[in-house]
């Protein structure tokens, strides 16, 4: 496996991960834009409306038919948070030509389709068409409202909202229902132009070769656009610490309560310097060898799940668990107790080594999945060099117990969010 970067335009890179192990090729367009309440909903709608139709494929049903004919080519869209940035992703993946029973190249056709979807949307007079806009707005609103269905996800989202109230990272990733309702055909068209002109852009190709002329044709598309005011998306503000942690409780018609806790960390950043935070969080609440699993779940039998995860670029650790109301205090106390144990370095060599081995084993598996490789390099724009998952696995092996303890010492409780059953349930 090898990687190569090419410059496509000001603030736009082509990134090729050469690997011969797959029967498919994956191509993704990634747009990085500042996360802000005023623009979040419009930007988040773009990947979805753009991958639903275009001038050439004015109707989503026709587009789906074409994808089927392209041997089940997959077209995906997403809008995620990347620290204080919004990451808009549009991906196509298609089986390699040697498996096709047709004469035309599938990959060339799939690339052409993706470029047309992104650069030639179905618009008139500087506006998206009402029929497309209304459909995508309805779906976006239903998606936002639907978040409440899965309580574990809902509770985690609420924790982040409370913890970063008034900050960029606290903005919901697709905006609110009111934000979506305000979008017009014209405003969305302007957002689309702004995305093309001002976003930092990464185009990933993961496969055996870059389709002939693909990167060149993207450069050509950008040459007619004035690319200016491109923000540096490498930096996100670290999580502020507090001496007075807040607790927010909400009641709902549920049987099981959810306990979510957010912590700030002094170690942050999506680079090698914060790998100690990754290991520390894993010892705290990662695999079955972790402090939370073996104590809160196995020894105390309080829950089915209780785990911790780190968002390194924000210096954020979250813990989430599903517990009965009467056990909520007990679980919270024990979670904090386990954190203290990690801070004091009272975790065992077994826990420490298990964590390093587990992280490395998992990183070394990334090369076997196109999707994971695409995501990996999409999230690695912060690094000055190019680091493969295996490179990082090597560095994780160098993390010491002292590094872990030092990272843990900078971790402070910030917010507790509880979703509890209504009284009487």
């Amino acid at each position: 496996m090898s990687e190569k970067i090419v410059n496509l335009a000001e603030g736009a890179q082509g990134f090729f991960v050469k690997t011969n192990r797959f029967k498919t090729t994956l191509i993704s367009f990634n747009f990085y834009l500042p996360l802000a309440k005023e623009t979040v909903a419009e930007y988040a709608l773009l990947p979805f409306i753009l991958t639903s139709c275009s001038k050439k494929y004015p109707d989503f049903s026709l587009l789906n038919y074409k994808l089927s004919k392209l041997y089940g080519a997959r077209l995906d869209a997403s809008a995620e948070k990347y620290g204080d940035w919004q990451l808009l992703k549009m991906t196509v993946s298609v089986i390699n030509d040697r498996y096709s029973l047709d004469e035309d190249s599938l990959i060339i056709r799939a690339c052409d389709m993706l470029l047309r979807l992104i650069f030639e949307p179905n618009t008139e007079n500087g506006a998206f068409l009402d029929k497309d806009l209304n459909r995508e707005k309805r779906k976006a609103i239903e998606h936002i409202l639907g978040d409440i269905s899965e309580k574990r996800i809902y509770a985690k989202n609420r924790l982040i909202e409370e913890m970063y109230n008034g900050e960029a990272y606290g903005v919901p990733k697709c905006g609110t229902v009111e934000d979506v309702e305000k979008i017009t055909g014209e405003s969305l068209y302007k957002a689309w132009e702004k995305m093309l002109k001002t976003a930092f852009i990464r185009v990933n190709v993961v496969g055996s070769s870059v389709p002939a002329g693909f990167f060149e044709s993207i450069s050509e598309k950008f040459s007619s656009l004035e690319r200016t005011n491109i923000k540096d998306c490498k930096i996100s503000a670290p999580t502020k610490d507090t001496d007075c942690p807040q607790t927010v409780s909400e009641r709902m018609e549920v049987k099981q309560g959810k306990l979510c806790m957010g912590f700030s960390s002094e170690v942050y950043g999506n680079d090698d310097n914060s790998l100690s935070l990754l290991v520390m969080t894993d010892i705290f609440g990662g695999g079955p060898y972790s402090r939370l699993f073996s104590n809160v779940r196995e020894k105390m039998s309080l829950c089915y799940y209780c785990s911790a995860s780190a968002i390194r670029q924000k210096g954020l650790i979250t813990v989430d668990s599903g517990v009965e109301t009467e056990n909520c205090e007990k679980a919270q106390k024990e979670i904090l107790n386990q954190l203290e144990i990690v801070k004091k370095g009272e975790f065992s060599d077994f826990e420490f080594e298990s964590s390093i081995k587990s992280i490395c084993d998992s990183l070394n598996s990334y090369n076997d999945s196109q999707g994971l490789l695409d995501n990996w390099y999409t999230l690695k724009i912060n690094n000055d060099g190019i680091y493969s998952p295996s490179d990082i696995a090597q560095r994780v092996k160098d993390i010491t117990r002292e590094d872990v303890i030092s990272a843990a010492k900078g971790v402070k409780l910030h917010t507790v969010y509880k979703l509890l059953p209504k009284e009487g349930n």
Partner: protein
Amino acid sequence: MKREIFESDIGESYVKAVHSSGLQIYILEKAQYNSAYAIFGTKYGSIDTCFSVDGNETKVPEGIAHFLEHKLFESEDGDAFTKYAKTGAYANAFTSFDKTCYLFSCSDKFYENLDILLDFVQSPYFTQATVEKEQGIIGQEIRMYDDSPGWRVMFNMLLNMYKNHPVRIDIAGTIDSIAQIDADLLYKCYNTFYNPSNMFLCIAGNVDTDRILKQVKESVKQSEPVEIIRINEPEPDEVLNPYVEQSLAVAQPLFCFGYKEAMEKPNRSVKERIRTAILMEIIAGEASPLYKRLVDEGLINDEFSSEYFTGNGYSAVIFEGESRDPQRVAEEIKKEVDRIKIEGIDKKLFSAIRCGMYGNAIRMFDSVEGIAMQFVDCAMQGSSLFDEIKYLKSVTADDVFKRIALLDNNKTVLSVIKPIDSQE
């Protein structure tokens, strides 16, 4: 060990071997990959609630297969997770309606991990104290699913589709049913269903077939095969109730709409499954006219999906999603089924869907997890990994059309989860 090699023109081949104990082994080597994925499983799931061995009939509490899965991780010399922690592998297990599978994936120390897997699944250790501890954990798992609208909408449908078949009960059982489980019952189920003749080992990735087979030979215990008779009351063709609803904390209704298929024989063949999968795409797939109509009218969103739900003694074609008006969606699906019955299948659409499924079948071979999971299907159904690719080249629109007769608009269940406020 008896071995058979299967090859295909997509550049993949695999070995199927049968151990003298009856254990079936499937291995596909991927030399270019870093990782490997292994599953050790048994044909034992939540539907096996009543069975007989040597003429002795046993009825067990609901959810016991899943409970056993949790408990098997503990052995006399410590739990399996602790052993895996020493190698760095990712390990897990799951119980479904008709099987229980123990799995790991790793990019290093594969053979050590395989040793752990083979060892702990063959070393049951249940005590009253460990059983009681697990009742607390599984109790919380059940409560979690009680709050999951996506889970409830499906199980409410099954509960109202089937009158007798145990597919109608929750995989994890209930708080009451798991309270009846004790160590003796667990041993009884273990000794019946975890006999190697009822089990399979499925592996894909950067591995060596000869070495695996040698290891299996050394560590799989010899035991007399058991003949298990699964006892089920006859299931009528009719559904129990055509409509069921429940209120939960959701923003808009969720629905699950299923056609109950009559079972003239216990299981569906690979060909029948593929024909049905194509038919479902023709009825309501993303390129179908019905899908377009439902989206344009604001009746479904990206959550809409379909599933052919079939196993020993049950078979249902299921459409599910979110909708402001689930009744309308169900009516539209019924109308579309009637229309296709009269007008036949659109040949252009059929050919596009077949092409798409062919591509997806090839794509599957990029994932070691995907291959190992498909091997499980092969073991359960007695099929080959390449059957799907082969059959997709020859299946015709007429073959698919014949399947639609099984969809009877009078044998459907619509399950709906409503928002709480709309009822109050």
